[in-house]
């Protein structure tokens, strides 16, 4: 029977949750790296026992951990993230130039085919690549250097490159997203990049339809339809049917179109999940109710999924890397909250139950479906 392994990054360590295909009973391993912030952990699609983890702290900066046995043991690998050439400046919150400074790795994205190849999205925003299992990192500097970099600026969480999506049908094509710069695409494996933000409208920036400056919170793709992208922006849920060439809003009947996570059902490319969040400053669930919204029509028409989720006095957030799906039948959906709960649905969102209730604030959730 298949198994699932859920990788959870929190403010104070990492946890690994495992279950069989029924996803009812769970074993909890951790905390790993107790006391450190674990922004993200992810397994290699080419070798599920190869895991990468981003570990950081205000005292001692960035550490990268690697496991070759599914998280039972770990080893530190390279943590030198040096920007290529003269780093230059981006905009600070007040619009003044601010030098690029490496702070942390937000997201690790292993290659679809090579366990030793892994991308890192970092703050201040840049994309790095390792071809030796994380020992050495080189910046793909065509992204920062393509021209719009001096106009990027940080969002509230920092100027982070948080989304890295590889096109399974075209190894030369990668999508990334940055808060607050927008979405970008390469069609030559990272040498050159261009913004793909046409159709985005952001009322909170001087030019609401600018080429860059949009606070994209997250993007998602179904592996069988790589030209269709879904986006949760600072405000607005968006969709592109042409690999980001243009975007249309699909917020439809959502109670608020602000949020962080967005993900796609493993077997239904038109089924999309978001968790609406109250903003601008609150950043918790509206009306004290934790609701996942699901669209089975690729957007615009959304239904609230509430069964098993708290519907009173709940004021948590679900951060941008904290939702994932497994590929079992029925599709499992998982998300973690800033209140330390990790919820799972084993029926594509119809019903939910907590796997754990009392973790530190959850920063990221990834799922591996194992044979």
């Amino acid at each position, binding site marked *: 029977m298949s198994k699932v392994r859920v990788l959870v990054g929190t403010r104070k360590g990492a946890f690994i949750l495992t279950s069989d295909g029924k996803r009812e009973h769970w074993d909890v391993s951790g905390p790993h790296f107790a006391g450190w912030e674990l922004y993200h952990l992810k397994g290699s699609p080419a070798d599920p026992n190869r895991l990468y983890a981003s570990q950081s702290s*205000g*005292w*001692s900066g960035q550490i990268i951990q690697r496991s070759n046995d599914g998280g039972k043991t770990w080893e*530190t690998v390279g*943590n*030198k993230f*040096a920007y290529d050439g003269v780093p230059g400046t981006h905009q600070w919150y007040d619009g003044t130039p601010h030098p690029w400074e490496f702070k942390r790795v937000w997201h690790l994205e292993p290659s679809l085919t090579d366990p030793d190849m892994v991308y890192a999205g970092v703050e201040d925003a840049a994309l790095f690549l390792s071809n030796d299992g994380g020992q050495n990192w080189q910046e793909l500097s065509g992204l920062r250097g393509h021209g719009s970099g001096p106009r990027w600026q940080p969002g509230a969480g920092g100027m982070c490159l948080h989304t890295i999506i590889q096109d399974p049908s075209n190894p030369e094509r990668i999508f990334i997203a940055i808060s607050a710069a927008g979405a970008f695409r390469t069609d030559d494996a990272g040498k050159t990049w261009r913004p793909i933000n046409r159709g985005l409208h952001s009322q909170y920036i001087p030019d609401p339809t600018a080429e860059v400056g949009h606070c994209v919170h997250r993007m998602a793709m179904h592996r069988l339809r790589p030209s269709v992208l879904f986006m949760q922006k600072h405000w607005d849920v968006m969709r592109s049917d042409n690999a980001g060439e243009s975007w249309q809003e699909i917020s439809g009947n959502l109670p608020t179109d602000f949020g962080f996570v967005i993900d796609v059902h493993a077997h239904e490319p038109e089924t999309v999940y978001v968790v609406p969040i109250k903003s601008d400053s609150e950043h918790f669930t509206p009306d004290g109710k934790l609701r996942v919204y699901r669209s089975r029509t690729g957007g615009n028409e959304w239904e609230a999924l509430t069964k098993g989720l708290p519907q009173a006095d709940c004021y948590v957030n679900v951060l941008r890397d904290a939702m994932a799906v497994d590929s079992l039948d029925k599709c499992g959906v998982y998300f973690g909250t800033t209140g330390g709960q990790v919820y799972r649905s084993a029926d594509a969102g119809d019903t939910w139950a907590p796997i754990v209730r009392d973790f530190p604030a959850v920063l990221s959730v990834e799922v591996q479906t194992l044979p």
Partner: protein
Amino acid sequence: MIRVELPPHLRGLARISGEVRLDIQGLATQRSVVDALEARYPMLRGAIRDHITQKRRPFLRFFACGEDLSHEQPDAPLPDAVASGAEPLLIVGAIAGG
């Protein structure tokens, strides 16, 4: 022989308990001690001083013999009591975080 005490989070990272004892070739300085630490425990590279600038991380401090050595030059000699092993060099995490 130089004795070094690391803060708990770095002892965990390096998978050690208690003091570290290092043999230093030449003058005992902050730089030579951290060089020796990183050589023995490569996982500490970048965790005490920045990879690029080689500056001490701002939330870590160096103390010894009741003195704050954090702002001494990295190539300044450490106190004789540290160089002789009579007193440890303390690498201390700032009281910060949550």
